[in-house]
């Protein structure tokens, strides 16, 4: 078993699809939280195979999409004005700020590097002792241990020219915010498997109980997603609300205790602004005060005015599942991956990019 191909097997996909057609008797609206799941659903054509009664809406689980505009502006400012080596994941480099993206800053001469891992940024800092190296540390719980580890590595090696600009967000408060929104239409959630790989499943029981909400922790391959949807539809059809774990081959109930320990050593929980959604209380991480020498926000004391979002981009409604990408008047017209108005059109997890690249929506024909 290689743990990939088996979960893309067309005959198993067909079995799940026919099972879903058999058990679905009423209309249901469900949300996949993670942008990786959105891309897998759209790219593999799964949405078109589901019964008409199942509506999939796409959630806010795309970290670069919810990274607030003013933090991108800060990163661009650091790269352009403070002579730092600014590094981040590839997607983050392309997201537009209020004036520029980091990629445009790079084109204008700033030292912006795309890295695979934050641990590489620490090596970069070691190799360039006369320069400040800042890692733009975005992500959900999945990415928090790696970003935290980079701080611990720098500390252990006595590297003082390394810091992180943090934009870390958490899934359970986002689910809570979506469910409590008056416009909410979501009846059940596929929770993000890799987030739970780190944090475990404990935080989801109160969400299920308090909101009478079925939640299935789900993986990312076509068969994973179809099994997750099947488990969720069975609950909805039976009038149940339970927490189930489809992705048990990697998600343990307790998560990964070593990873949680590293997160707690470096980060503390804070309120966070979510781009397109607004502030959600206790929904993210910031570097702990005792490690603030590694916090770029503190180290560089950046004072920038908060810029306004483009009024033409409906990313907020997309990220809350209220609208589909192809319902945006700018989709595929003024807004394309090469010329994006908002982050969901850029990222490899953004719903708009998934629709643009992989779906057969009429607007592109």
């Amino acid at each position, binding site marked *: *078993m*290689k*743990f*990939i191909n*088996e*979960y893309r097997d067309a005959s*198993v996909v067909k*079995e*799940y699809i026919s*099972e879903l057609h058999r058990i679905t008797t009423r209309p249901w609206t469900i949300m996949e939280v*993670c*942008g*990786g799941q959105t891309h897998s659903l759209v790219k593999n054509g799964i949405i078109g195979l589901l019964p008409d009664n199942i509506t999939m809406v796409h959630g806010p*689980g*795309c*970290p*670069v999409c919810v990274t607030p505009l003013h933090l991108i502006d800060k990163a661009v400012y650091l790269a352009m004005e403070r002579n730092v080596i600014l590094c981040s*994941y590839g*997607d983050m480099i392309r997201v537009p700020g209020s004036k520029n993206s980091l990629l445009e800053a790079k084109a204008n001469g700033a030292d912006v590097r795309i890295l*695979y*891992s*934050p*641990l*590489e940024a620490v090596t970069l800092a070691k190799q360039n002792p006369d320069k400040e190296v800042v890692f733009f540390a*975005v*992500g*959900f719980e*999945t*990415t928090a*241990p*790696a970003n935290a*580890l980079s701080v611990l*590595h720098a500390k*252990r*090696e006595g590297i003082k020219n390394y810091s992180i600009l943090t934009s870390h967000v958490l899934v359970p408060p986002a689910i809570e915010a979506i469910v409590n929104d008056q416009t909410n239409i979501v009846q059940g959630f596929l929770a*993000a498997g*890799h*987030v739970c*790989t*780190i944090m475990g499943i404990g935080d989801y029981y109160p969400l299920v109980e308090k909101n009478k909400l079925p939640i299935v922790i789900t993986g*990312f391959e076509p*068969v*994973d997603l179809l*099994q997750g949807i*099947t488990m969720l539809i*069975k609950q909805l059809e039976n009038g149940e609300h339970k927490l189930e774990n*489809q992705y*048990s*081959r*990697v*998600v*343990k109930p307790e998560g*990964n205790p*070593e*990873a949680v320990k*590293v997160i707690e050593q470096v980060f503390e929980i804070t309120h966070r602004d979510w781009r397109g959604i607004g502030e959600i209380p206790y929904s993210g991480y910031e570097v702990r005060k005792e490690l603030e020498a590694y916090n770029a926000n503190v180290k560089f004391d950046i004072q920038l005015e908060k810029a306004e979002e483009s009024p033409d981009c409906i990313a907020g409604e997309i990220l809350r599942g209220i609208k589909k990408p192809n319902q945006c008047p700018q989709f595929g017209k003024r807004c394309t991956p090469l010329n994006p108005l908002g982050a969901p059109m850029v*990222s*490899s*997890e953004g719903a708009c990019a998934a629709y643009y690249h992989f779906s057969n929506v009429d607007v592109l024909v």
Partner: protein
Amino acid sequence: MCLAIPGKIQSIDTIHNGMVRMAKVSFGGIIKEASLEMLPAADIGDYVLVHVGVAISKIDEAEAAKTFEYLKEIGEIDELIEHTQVDKN
């Protein structure tokens, strides 16, 4: 962004004076380095899930098979329920 890929540990080295274990992980033949700091028990030959250069979970083979048994299981349960209802009638 939360993309994590399963790969097989080929070899393990230590860095930072033996404090950090780094693995060479094969992803279908492509070898990348990954930190094993989150998985103290991981060993050569294990399949692990790697995210941005850090191995975050060991893959449980017995659990992995369950996805393929699930349909059979729910089919059998449904059959049982149908039979029970037939019996009652």
